[in-house]
C-alpha cells in the first residue's frame, strides 16, 4: 500500500483506502450492491491496518454502533446501498441534530440504471440537510472520504459520501496519500440539550445549529478542492456536472475538441457551492446541468438564476432535454451538449443501428438460474411439488418473495414469488394478504441474512396476532447474493473465525410462532412433507430450510462426489431439466448429461428421475 505508485482500484476499494488514510478505527455496514467492497476490502486489510471492520445485521444497527463509537472518540465509516440509507435514516436524522466526536462518514451507493435490482433512488435528495459529497471517479472516491472525515470533525456532523454503480464498480489508477494517525478523542460529555431530542426547546435549538453548520460548510465549499470552476471566455456557455456525468462530459469535450465551455465540477452537491454557481451564471447565457436521476442541482441553479434576476437558459431535466430515468452515457451527454451549443455533435446512423438491433435479436435470453447445488432449488421444487400434490393450481397460492438470492424462485420452472418489496417485507406482506381475506394459504420466502436484517419484527407481529401464514426461511448460513458475507447464522464473523450461531428456529419460537420445523432442502421428500403440513395448518407456521450455500461448500472443500447419468437408463424425458433447471445439466444426443466440474453432488436430480437413471454422488 505504498504512496509512490498508482494503484488500479475499484471506486469502493479506493473509498476503503480513504478510510485508512483518514485513520478510521471502525468500518461497519450491511452488504448491498454496489457498496459491498468497501467493508470487504477493509476486512482484508484489517490485520495490517488494525482497523475493526465488520458486518452488522442491518444498516441502522451499523450506523447506531458507529454513532456510539464516534461519541466514544474514534473515527468511523458506515457503508450501505441507497436502500440501506432508508433503513438507517431514522437514526441519521437524529444524530444530525446532535454532535459527533470522532468523524462519522456515511458512504452510500446509488444505482442509476438499476443494475443491482433495486429502485433508482437518488440519495442526494435525502430529506436531511447533511453535507453530501458526490464522487465522479475512483481517485475522488478516496479523496472524498478523507475530506469527509475532516468536515465531519470540524462541524461535528455526520457527512455523506455518495457514489453510483459505475464509479463504485469501475476501476482506474488511484494515487495514495499519507496515512494519518488519529488519537482517540475524549468521549462525549453528558450534555442533554445537545444529545437528547426529548424537549421541544432543545430540538428547535439543535435544528438551528444544524442549519448553521451546513451554511458554514457552504461558505467554505466555494474554495474547497471538491468543487472546481473553470471560466472560459468567448462562447458564454457553461456546464454544471457532478458524479459519473463528469467522466462522460470529459469524453465528449475531448472527442469534439471543445475547449471554450465554462465548467463547474461539483463535489459538494449539498450544500451546493452557491458562490461558484453565481460566478458561473454571471459568465454565461446558456447553462447545461448534468446529474443522473433527480434534478437536485438543477432546481437550485434555476432558483439562483431567478434570485440574481438573470436570463440564463438552462438545459437539463426540467426542459425535457435529459432523462430522470436510467443512467447517463456518452451519447446522452453528447446530445445534451449539442443542444447547449446549438449544433449536432453526434452522428445519426439509422442503417447501422438497424443492423445492430438485428444482431442483438440473435442473442438468446439468459435468465439468472440458481447455481448448481443451490439449496434454494430444493426449497422451491419441494414447495411446487407440495402445492401440486395438495391440488392447488400454480396461480392459486400467493408466495411473497424477499430480497436476495431467494427471489430467483421467480424464474422458471418454479414461477414462484409474486411480489418483492424490501428487506423483511415478505412476512408482513403475507399477513396482509390474509387480513384481506385470501382463503388459500399464503407463503413468505425469506433468506437467513434478510430474516435477521428485518424479518424478525414482522415474525413477532405474526406470532402475536396468530396470523395463519407459512414462513419459509431459506437458511444457507451466509449473505449469499452480495458475495458470501458472514451472517449471524454462519458460525463465524468478519472479526472472529468462530462466533455464536444464532438459531432462526429459536427466534421464531420466541416470536410466538410455535409450529416450526427444520429440514434439509436437499431432501425433497422431507421438505415437501414439511410444506404440506404447514400449508394445512390453521395457525402461523414456519419451516427453516437449512443447508449451506453450495458456493461456500465448494470453497471449503465440503462437496460430495458429482452425480452421473447411466445413459442406458436415461429415456431423454428431460424431466430433471424441466423440474430443476440446473446449470450443471446439459443435453447430449437427446439424453441428460451432467458436467462433472460444476456438479456439486446435491443429489436432487437423482430424486426426481422416474427411471433411476441418475446415480447420486458416491453411489
Amino acid at each position, binding site marked *: 500500500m505504498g504512496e509512490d505508485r498508482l494503484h488500479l482500484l475499484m471506486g469502493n476499494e479506493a473509498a476503503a483506502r480513504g478510510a485508512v488514510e483518514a485513520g478510521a478505527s471502525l468500518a461497519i455496514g450491511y452488504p448491498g450492491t454496489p457498496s459491498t467492497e468497501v467493508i470487504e476490502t477493509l476486512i482484508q486489510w484489517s490485520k495490517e491496518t488494525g482497523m475493526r471492520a465488520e458486518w452488522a445485521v442491518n444498516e441502522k444497527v451499523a450506523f447506531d454502533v458507529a454513532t456510539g463509537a464516534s461519541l466514544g472518540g474514534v473515527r468511523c465509516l458506515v457503508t450501505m446501498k441507497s436502500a440501506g440509507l432508508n433503513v438507517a435514516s431514522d437514526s441519521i436524522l437524529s444524530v444530525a441534530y446532535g454532535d459527533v466526536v470522532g468523524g462519522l462518514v456515511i458512504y452510500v451507493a446509488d444505482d442509476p440504471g438499476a443494475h*443491482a435490482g433495486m429502485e433508482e433512488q437518488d440519495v442526494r435528495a435525502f430529506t436531511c440537510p447533511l453535507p453530501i459529497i458526490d464522487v465522479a471517479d475512483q481517485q475522488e472516491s478516496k479523496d472524498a472520504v478523507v475530506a469527509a472525515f475532516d468536515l465531519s470533525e470540524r462541524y461535528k456532523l455526520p457527512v455523506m459520501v455518495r457514489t453510483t454503480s459505475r464509479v463504485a464498480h469501475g476501476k482506474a489508477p488511484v494515487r495514495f496519500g499519507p496515512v494519518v494517525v488519529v488519537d482517540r478523542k475524549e468521549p462525549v460529555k453528558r450534555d442533554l440539550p445537545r444529545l437528547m431530542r426529548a424537549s421541544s426547546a432543545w430540538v428547535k435549538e439543535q435544528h438551528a445549529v444544524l442549519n448553521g453548520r451546513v451554511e458554514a460548510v457552504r461558505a467554505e465549499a466555494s474554495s474547497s478542492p471538491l468543487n472546481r470552476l473553470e471560466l472560459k471566455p468567448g462562447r458564454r456557455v457553461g456546464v454544471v456536472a457532478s458524479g459519473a456525468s463528469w467522466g*462522460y462530459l470529459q469524453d465528449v469535450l475531448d472527442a469534439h475538441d471543445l475547449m471554450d465551455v465554462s465548467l463547474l465540477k461539483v463535489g459538494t452537491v449539498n450544500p451546493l457551492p452557491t458562490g461558484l454557481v453565481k460566478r458561473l451564471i454571471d459568465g454565461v447565457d446558456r447553462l447545461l446541468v448534468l446529474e443522473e436521476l433527480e434534478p437536485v442541482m438543477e432546481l437550485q441553479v434555476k432558483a439562483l438564476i431567478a434570485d440574481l434576476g438573470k436570463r440564463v437558459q438552462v438545459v437539463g431535466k426540467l426542459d425535457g432535454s435529459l432523462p430522470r430515468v436510467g443512467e447517463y452515457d456518452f451519447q446522452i451527454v453528447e446530445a445534451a451538449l449539442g443542444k447547449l451549443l446549438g449544433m449536432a455533435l453526434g452522428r445519426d446512423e439509422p442503417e447501422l443501428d438497424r443492423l445492430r438491433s438485428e444482431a442483438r435479436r440473435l*442473442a*438468446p435470453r439468459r435468465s439468472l438460474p440458481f447455481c448448481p447445488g443451490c439449496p434454494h432449488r430444493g426449497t422451491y421444487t419441494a414447495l411446487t411439488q407440495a402445492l401440486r400434490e395438495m391440488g392447488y393450481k400454480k396461480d392459486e397460492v400467493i408466495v411473497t418473495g424477499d430480497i436476495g438470492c431467494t427471489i430467483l424462485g421467480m424464474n422458471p420452472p418454479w414461477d414462484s414469488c409474486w411480489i418483492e418489496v424490501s428487506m423483511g417485507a415478505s412476512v408482513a406482506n403475507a399477513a396482509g394478504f390474509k387480513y384481506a381475506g385470501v382463503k388459500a394459504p399464503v407463503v413468505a420466502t425469506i433468506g437467513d441474512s434478510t430474516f435477521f436484517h428485518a424479518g424478525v419484527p414482522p415474525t413477532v407481529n405474526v406470532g402475536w396476532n396468530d396470523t395463519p401464514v407459512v414462513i419459509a426461511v431459506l437458511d444457507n448460513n451466509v449473505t449469499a447474493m452480495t458475495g458470501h458475507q458472514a451472517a449471524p447464522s454462519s458460525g463465524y464473523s468478519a472479526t472472529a473465525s468462530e462466533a455464536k450461531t444464532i438459531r432462526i428456529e429459536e427466534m421464531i419460537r420466541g416470536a410466538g410462532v410455535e409450529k416450526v420445523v427444520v429440514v434439509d432442502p436437499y431432501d425433497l421428500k422431507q421438505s415437501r412433507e414439511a410444506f404440506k403440513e404447514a400449508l394445512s395448518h390453521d395457525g402461523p407456521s414456519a419451516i427453516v430450510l437449512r443447508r449451506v450455500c453450495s458456493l461456500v461448500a465448494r470453497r471449503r472443500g465440503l462437496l460430495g462426489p458429482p452425480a452421473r447419468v447411466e445413459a442406458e437408463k436415461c429415456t431423454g424425458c428431460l424431466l430433471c431439466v424441466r423440474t430443476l433447471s440446473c446449470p450443471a445439466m446439459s443435453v447430449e444426443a437427446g439424453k441428460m448429461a451432467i458436467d462433472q466440474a460444476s456438479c456439486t453432488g446435491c443429489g436432487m436430480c437423482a430424486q426426481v428421475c422416474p427411471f433411476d437413471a441418475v446415480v447420486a454422488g458416491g453411489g
Partner: protein
Amino acid sequence: MDDTVEEYNILVTSVGGQGGVTLARVLSYAAMDQGLNVRVGETLGMAQRGGPVQSHVRVGDRVHGSQMPRGRCDVLLSLEPAESVRAPEFLGLGTRVVMSTAPVYPIPVMLKEETYPELNVITAALGRIGCRVHALDARELAMRAEAPASLNVVVLGAYAALEEVVIGTESMRRALGEALPRRFLEQNTRAFDLGYEEMRRQL
C-alpha cells in the same frame, strides 16, 4: 507500436463463470504495466453464474468515463459466440472481434423452447455492422493446454496475435503472473501460447 495512445476501447463479453471479469483485470494490469492510463467499467450486480457479463477496458490519455461511447469499440473479446451480439451498440466499422466458438446453451435452448443462432449467422451479423471476426475454439484449446478454466486466457493469447494491439505481448505475459494466482501461471502461459499460435496460423 506508438508510445502514446489516445483512446483504445476493449469490450469483453462472456457468460457468468467463464472468466470475463478476470480477463478484463489481466488486460488492465497489462496496460498499467505499460504505463498506459486505464478505465475499467463493470457492473457486478446480478452478474453471477449463468448471466451475461460485460466489461469495458478503456486505455489511453483521453479516456475518462468507465463506459466506452457507442460504436467506438476497437476490439471485442467474446468468450461465447452468442454473447458477441449481446452489446452490438458498441461495435462499428473496423471493430476486431476475437470469439470463442464453444457455445454455452441456456436451459430454454436445451429444452428446444428457444433457438440458438448458428455460428455463421452470428459472424455474418457482425460482418454487416463492419466487424472483422476471428473465431477459435478456445474451450478445446484450453483443454489441450490442460487448463480447462483458462478459456479466457486462450482468447487473450489470440488477441495478442493481432497486428494492431496497443498492449504489448510481454506486458500481457507479466499480467498473467500479476493479476492471476501464481500457482496457475504455468498452465495459463500454456493457454496463452496456444491461443496466440492458433491466431497466428489464421492470420
